């Protein structure tokens, strides 16, 4: 029985590439639901099954097993009304480079049977929103990657779909274009569009999504809000410290070993010009760090506590433990100054 509050309901969804029995299992009996009006992030490493899932949701692939219900319609039996209600922005900007921006939009509007009287007005509106109005008569082969991406999104929403699938919308774009697209996603969502965002950009999911599902090896590893997922992983809290040692100072066994030896530290990871010390109790670790610095005449350049980031959660859930590079860099010395802030934004 489907729930009309959900835009998407997925039950036991499975995909085997090739013949069942001898094929490759890409998606393994996954279950999840996306509420109407939310931005739902679908995260996973390469090859986890993200794009396969999205292709099944958009009718491009037939599930081997399981059921997909979109806006109350069973996708296997009622694909036609569902297709009218969804827009798709694939990973590659699939625009027609031989056509102008205007012709691309008109083609899509006609394909989705947008009434003739609305087509031109809607196309103009979208081209203006996306900053492409001045280039409307230019062939898309002359567009930059960011412009093609914007046009691709405009084509996906020209029929005002209540459900929009976005597959990796910002990789490879300059900062300005990526921010513009993220703002647009927020705006579309504010207007009521349900967004299914497939990405491996953790920070993007953190900024945009109401809830995220993390998929790994074809199975859902977790589904929750980003903040709740972070709270679940207390062991990946950390203390970040930048130390300036006196000339010639080198701890015996290297910095990694010395810092890992501090009480409460589970892993020490070099992080630019800083060290990140993972612990279950950051407040108890702080005085240990200052005591260590004082005892060794180290200058504390910066010291802060960090909650687990969504990336930490992602790495934990996908079996790539935080701090796996520790042994490769344990003999590196902390640099004296200068690189602080380059890793900004990961809170």
């Amino acid at each position, binding site marked *: 029985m489907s729930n009309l509050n959900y835009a998407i309901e997925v039950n036991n969804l499975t*995909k*085997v*590439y*090739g*013949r069942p029995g001898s*094929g490759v299992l*890409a998606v393994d009996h996954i279950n999840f639901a996306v509420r109407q009006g939310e931005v739902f992030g679908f995260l996973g490493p390469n090859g986890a099954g993200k794009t*396969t899932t999205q292709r099944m949701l*958009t*009718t*491009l*692939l*037939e599930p081997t097993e399981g059921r997909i219900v979109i806006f109350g319609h069973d996708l296997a039996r009622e694909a*036609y*009304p569902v*297709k*009218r209600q*969804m827009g*798709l922005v*694939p*990973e*590659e*900007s*699939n*625009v*027609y480079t*031989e*056509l102008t921006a205007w*012709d691309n939009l008109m*083609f*899509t509007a*006609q*394909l*989705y*049977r947008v009434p003739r009287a609305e087509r031109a007005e809607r196309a103009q509106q979208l081209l203006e929103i996306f900053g492409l109005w001045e280039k409307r008569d230019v062939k898309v082969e002359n567009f930059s990657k960011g412009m093609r991406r914007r046009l691709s999104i405009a*084509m996906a929403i020209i029929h005002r779909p209540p459900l929009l699938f976005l597959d990796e919308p910002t990789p490879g774009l300059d900062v300005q274009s990526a921010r513009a697209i993220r703002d647009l996603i927020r705006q579309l969502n504010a207007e009521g569009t349900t967004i299914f965002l497939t990405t491996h950009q953790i920070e993007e999911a953190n900024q945009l999504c109401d809830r995220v599902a993390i998929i790994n090896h074809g199975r859902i590893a977790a589904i929750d809000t980003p903040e709740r997922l972070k709270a679940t992983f207390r062991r990946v809290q950390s203390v970040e410290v930048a130390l300036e040692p006196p000339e010639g100072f080198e701890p015996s066994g290297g910095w990694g070993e010395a810092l890992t030896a501090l009480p409460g530290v589970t892993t020490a990871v070099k992080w630019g010009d800083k060290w990140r010390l993972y612990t279950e109790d950051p407040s108890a670790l702080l005085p240990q760090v200052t005591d260590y610095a004082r005892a060794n005449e180290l200058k504390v350049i910066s010291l802060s506590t960090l909650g687990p980031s969504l990336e930490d959660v992602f790495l934990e859930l996908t079996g790539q433990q935080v701090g796996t590079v520790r042994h490769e860099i344990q003999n590196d010395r902390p640099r004296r100054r200068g690189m602080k802030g380059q890793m900004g934004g990961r809170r």
Partner: protein
Amino acid sequence: MKGGWRQRLQDELAQAWVVIVKDMKVHYLRPGMIMFGFMMPFFMFFSFSVRREMGAAQGVARLLALTTFFTAAAAGPFIIPLERRLGTYDRLLAAPMSLLTLLLGKASVGALFAIGVSIFSLLVGVLAFGATIAQPWLLVAGVILGSFSFSALGLIFGSIPTRNPGDVQMPSTLLRWGLLFISGTFIPLTEMAPAARTVAYLSPLTYAQDLMNYAVLGVGLLNPWLDLLVLLVSGVLFMVPPVWMHQRARRLGY
């Protein structure tokens, strides 16, 4: 559903037309394609006709059969793999229209291109060589049905689940050249050995050539209605493998 099946049919027809117009702009009305479409049949015609005594009307009949055959299936086999590679084919598959509508659009655009080039060939034959047409309406029907049938034949190769047009080129070219030599286009059916003639009857090009002979010269070996029927039925039958191949690719994930 709002509007019921009539509305749906109207939508599907309109969507097929949108696909035709888009493909015509994107793939067919390109300088290279136009040059190929217009020049290839003439090159073929002159290659096999020089030093042979042939009247203008006989030449026009052969030219029309070659034109419909070569231009209808000239781009069709390569467009879908190319669109798959560019990702634009997913846009069409995800659109609210049936697979059959999409494939009909794809087959029709090749047919329309072939019809356009055939009109040009006909004008050259009539205006430059003074050829006369014995059965104009039969000629129109033959060009339309032949173009669609050959375009649908090309679509079978376009439906091979690949993103590389090169993968399609070899089997497609092999079949087209094979058909060309067994179909009575260069060696009349009456001059063929019985075994060769039996093989010729398996090719739709044989019926297209016979129909063109009848329409232009007023003389054919077979009944023209049989020719029309074979072209019609082969056009319909050639649409079956592409639908099946697309469904299979969607099911197996190729």
